[in-house]
């Protein structure tokens, strides 16, 4: 997956905001409240545009409260995004159609041997380039008022996943990360993961999957003093790095998006962090997008990509009096120039 340009035509107050010259690695900067998080949410939604169900994701809704109309939470009556992925430009639009009264709709059960009557509160309509997404597959999302139906291809064939990590990540490692860790171990990358953890916390010999007395699995770190500690006991920075590395691995040929990538990291480890990101995006063919407020993080990224400035873009968001939120991009020579004469890019 490679997105070279993106535009939030109509989304969460960043209408018209476009990123040009997206690179392998992208950093998004700008003052608080300008729309950095909204932008990365929109990019994430766009990468999964054949699955409109993503609109209910908590990272997008920024809430765990049940939502009936996901569009209304993110915009007014519709959402429209445009991007160029792998050289092909797509325009994506979605609208919510509420049913005035809950209808009962036949829905095939899993084994298709029978259908069930499901209360339906509405329908989500999505188009790619004005073509309705309805390839014969139909999905639904449960809400307190009933299901909301939306069309989806029977099988998503897109190569590469897109993983987004928001700022409200939790210290506890959810089960999906246990699965990702297991996949990584099976493919022989366990040592690399341990080495990555040692960047910010030297003395970790091994990471293992253990079971507690209730039978619940958890990740544990074995230290050089042969002490076993739950991963989260090592601190937020370690957990954050652990999740980032797993995400990069899992998103092979896809994309990883991280909000405030420097959170939990001491400035002294940021160069190593970015070296790790650079290696991973090349080895695993991942496109990386992150937001940051940190000068040290930007410096570290510029240093990591010093020899390949075309592979890093820094997109600075700003407010234009007449045109709203816009972006300027430093990449290649302009990135080298910004580094050379210390131009502020936040």
């Amino acid at each position, binding site marked *: 997956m490679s997105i070279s340009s993106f535009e939030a035509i109509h989304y969460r107050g960043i209408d018209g905001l476009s990123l040009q010259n997206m690179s392998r690695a992208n950093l998004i900067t700008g003052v608080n409240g300008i729309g950095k998080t909204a932008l990365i949410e929109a990019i994430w939604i766009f990468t999964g545009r054949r699955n409109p169900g993503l609109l209910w994701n908590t990272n997008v809704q920024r809430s765990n409260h049940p939502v009936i109309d996901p569009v209304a939470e993110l915009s007014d009556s519709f959402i429209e995004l445009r991007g160029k992925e792998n050289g092909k430009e797509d325009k994506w639009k979605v609208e919510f159609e509420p049913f005035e009264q809950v209808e009962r709709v036949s829905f095939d059960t899993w084994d298709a041997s029978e259908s069930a009557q499901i209360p339906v509160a509405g329908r989500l309509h999505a188009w790619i380039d004005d073509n309705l997404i309805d390839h014969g597959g139909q999905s639904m999302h449960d809400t307190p008022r009933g299901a909301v139906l939306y069309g989806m291809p029977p099988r998503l064939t897109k190569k590469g996943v897109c993983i987004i990590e928001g700022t409200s990540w939790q210290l506890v490692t959810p089960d999906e990360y246990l699965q990702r860790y297991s996949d990584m171990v099976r493919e022989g990358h366990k040592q690399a993961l341990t080495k990555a953890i040692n960047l910010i916390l030297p003395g970790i010999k091994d990471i293992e999957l253990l079971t507690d007395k209730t039978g619940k699995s958890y990740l544990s770190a074995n230290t050089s003093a042969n002490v076993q500690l739950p991963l989260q006991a090592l601190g937020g920075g370690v957990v954050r790095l652990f999740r980032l590395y797993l995400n990069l691995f899992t998103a092979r040929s896809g994309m990883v998006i991280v909000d405030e990538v420097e959170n939990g990291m001491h400035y002294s480890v940021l160069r190593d962090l970015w070296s790790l990101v650079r290696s991973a995006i090349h080895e695993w063919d991942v496109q990386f997008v992150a937001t940051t407020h940190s*000068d*040290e993080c930007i*410096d*570290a990224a510029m*240093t990591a990509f010093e020899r390949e400035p075309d592979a890093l873009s820094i997109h*600075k968001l*700003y407010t*234009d*009096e007449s045109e709203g939120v*816009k972006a*300027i*991009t*430093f990449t290649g*020579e*302009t*990135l*080298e*120039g*910004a580094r*050379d*004469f*210390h*131009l*502020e*890019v*936040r």
Partner: protein
Amino acid sequence: MPSREPKIKIFENRILLVEGKDEANLFGKLIEICLNDNKPAIQVIEIGGKYTFRRNLETLKTGALTRPSLRSIGIVRDADTSATASFQSVHNSVQQAGYRPPSAHAEFSDASPSIGIFIVPDGSEPGAIETVCRRSVQDEESAECVEAYMDCLTAHNALKSNVPDKTFTHAYLAATSDPVARVGEGALQDVWNFQSPAFANLREFVHNLASR
């Protein structure tokens, strides 16, 4: 460790681009003397040397997109051995960066932002800012001593420097109450006479930059 120098932000609508810290010190002082409270402020930015000038100017242009009110950019460059070649080099870089350059030294283009180029000392002779500084103090008694020192060096075939103006300014600065090494540092100590006719063309350039 990353550099802890404060990063450059564009905060004025008029910018003067100079090569480095020493030039920034000198021109900052010149601007302070030239402009009174009625004139808008000029921000001095160290853009780097000639080998990275075009690239850095393009970077500045990208950064300046966040400031649509930017009205004028002045560029100062030493002539060194050829004022014509220096002007042409800056002119080409300005064009390649996507700005409209002026047609001649000390002029400003009719564009937004308006671009002005000044080749030190005067757009036609070889030399550098040290040339102007030397001329500005030529009537001082200590200048007479320094000239005598340089004549003595020449007579003994001991003046090896290819840039006699630089030799002069270094020697002149060495005799001040708080000796410093560089002309910009000297400017901060009010060593150079910015009201001298030697600085007249530069003063006019600064005034023109401020009035665009």
